[in-house]
């Protein structure tokens, strides 16, 4: 029979998957299992399974660190502000772009606002540290010119978290509009025609056709963003923070880096990382379950 013959030849499909599976196994699944080192006094020469088991000692140590609750709060605070801005601003900009009738203008704007997404935080940190410097940067000069005391955006603990949220929003809002613009073009034009027939002006059309039209995708993106509740943005903060703003700017990921990579306290650092992963995973699970229930979203 044709069908069984096809199935016999499927070994070549397994073979095609093999290289990717081996790499996933080694560099994704083994590290996942390697999180057991959170419960060990990890000794690199002994490996994941022969190091000394210490139960919850590493976690005890972590939650007795003087700053740990502040760091957890910083992570949560910065991440939540970024999530909110990451939905609100792109939606507004997409709605405004949708009102543009000159296609060439619209495309030029899109080209410009997508661009920062593709630059690394190393480059952008280099740029922002210079631009935001109170003594020599353009922003500082502008403040002075307006007769204001220049704000120390990257060096003042009061300003640092908001500087992170703003610069991240600046980098990503344009890219974030793509999904909403796609949803906007997907709205059935006959709905607008019907609204015009009913005498709706542009504002009414936006309110009663456009917004309901993109609401599902806005909801979906907000729900899916919940998995980022502890992702405050390592690349960005690592490249822009300094000890003087640790009080408001130190986050779980940077703490893991300093404890793990600089102090080589592998077990302790892994405990922090695992704490973050477990909570993020739980949030992700909840968000996917919600998305499954309230929207048509399927992971694949």
């Amino acid at each position, binding site marked *: 029979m044709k069908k069984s013959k*096809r*199935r016999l030849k*499927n070994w*070549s*499909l397994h073979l*095609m*998957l093999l290289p*990717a*599976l081996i*790499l*996933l196994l*080694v*560099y994704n*699944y*083994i590290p*996942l299992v*390697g999180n057991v080192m959170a419960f060990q006094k990890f000794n*690199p020469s002994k490996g*994941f399974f022969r190091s000394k088991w210490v139960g919850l000692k590493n976690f005890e140590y972590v939650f007795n660190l003087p700053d740990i609750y502040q760091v957890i709060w910083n992570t949560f605070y910065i991440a939540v502000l970024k999530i909110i801005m990451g939905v609100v601003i792109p939606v507004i*900009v997409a709605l405004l*772009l949708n*009102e*543009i009738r000159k296609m060439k203008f619209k495309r030029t*704007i899109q*080209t*410009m606002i997508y661009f*920062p997404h*593709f*630059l690394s935080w190393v*480059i952008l940190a*280099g*740029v922002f540290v*210079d631009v935001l410097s*109170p003594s*020599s940067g353009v922003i500082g*000069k502008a403040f002075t010119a307006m007769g204001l005391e220049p704000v120390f955006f990257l*060096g003042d603990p009061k300003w640092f978290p908001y500087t992170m949220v703003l610069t991240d929003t600046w980098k990503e809002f*344009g*890219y974030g509009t793509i*999904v909403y613009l*796609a949803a906007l073009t997907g709205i059935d034009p006959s709905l607008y025609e019907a609204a015009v027939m009913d005498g709706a*002006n542009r*504002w009414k059309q936006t309110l009663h056709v456009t917004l309901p039209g993109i609401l599902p995708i806005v909801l979906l993106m907000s729900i899916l963003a919940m998995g980022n509740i502890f992702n405050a943005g*390592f*690349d960005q903060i*690592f*490249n822009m923070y*300094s000890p003087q703003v640790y009080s408001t700017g130190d986050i779980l990921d940077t703490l*893991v880096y300093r404890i*793990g*990579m600089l102090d080589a306290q592998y077990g302790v650092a*892994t405990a922090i*990382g*695992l704490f973050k*992963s477990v909570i*993020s*995973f739980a949030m*992700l699970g909840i968000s996917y379950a919600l998305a499954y229930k309230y929207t048509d979203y399927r*992971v*694949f």
Partner: protein
Amino acid sequence: MHKKSLGMKIFTIFNYTFLTLLALTCLLPMINQLAISFSSSSAVAAGDVGLFPVDFTLDSYKYMADKPEFWKSLMVSLKRILIAVPFSMIICVLAAFPLSRQDHEFPARKYYIWMFVVPMLIGGGLIPTYIVVRNTGLIDSIWALVLPYTVNVFNTILLMNFFRSLPKELEEAAYVDGATHWQVLVRIILPVSKPVLATVTLFVIVNHWNSWFDGLIYLNSPDHYPLQTYLQTQVVSANLMALESLRDIRQIGMISDRTGKASQIFLAAVPVLMIYPFLQKYFTAGIVMGSVKG
């Protein structure tokens, strides 16, 4: 459309102006750095440089020209891309093809796809991954920058969704004629998949060009650093250290080097600028496909 109301006119003017200003803010910081890199150190120190160079000079670029570390790290980045891109593309395409088969043709698909999705949902974490990279003997080798990132699940799913969206008639005909899976992939699927292959290739190039943290933790010798890691250690951390003493404006060393730093930052962004037009042509479709349809 017929006559616009006054409110509509005002809104339209506001909208065009606002979006223009918003789009400009996305470019101005880079333009400011570009202007600084072409200005004299004294003009930069005096804070005169905004969007146009003052006392136009190529000094900082001349200074860069004989800065061997910069060029060495640039070569590392290029080498990394030349190795990683073909390697990653081949492995991801090979994985995406079986995953794009129908469940009834390839029943194991539903188990395999979970093996790809799980790493996307939960990562191994920094330290365990570092230990594995170390124990697989990759420290200080360029392969440390390649192997852990070879299988990009997002890209694989993007490819898979594209392959699934292709019309089935051609491949059905080929199978009836006795073609193997390899022949179907190479002769039928790949020739019509150029847009998605271009998208993913560009994504992989940009990812590898931009990544810096792996170089920082997996490479011991600064001689082996790719460009972004070099910039991180030489420009960004140095700047952050200077931040400490920024309150007093006496860090003359740092200020006079601002032109040099700006030129390095700008040069590191040039490749992204160069491939951006191609990237832009494709990525919108890719993103929508990847994030909405999943």
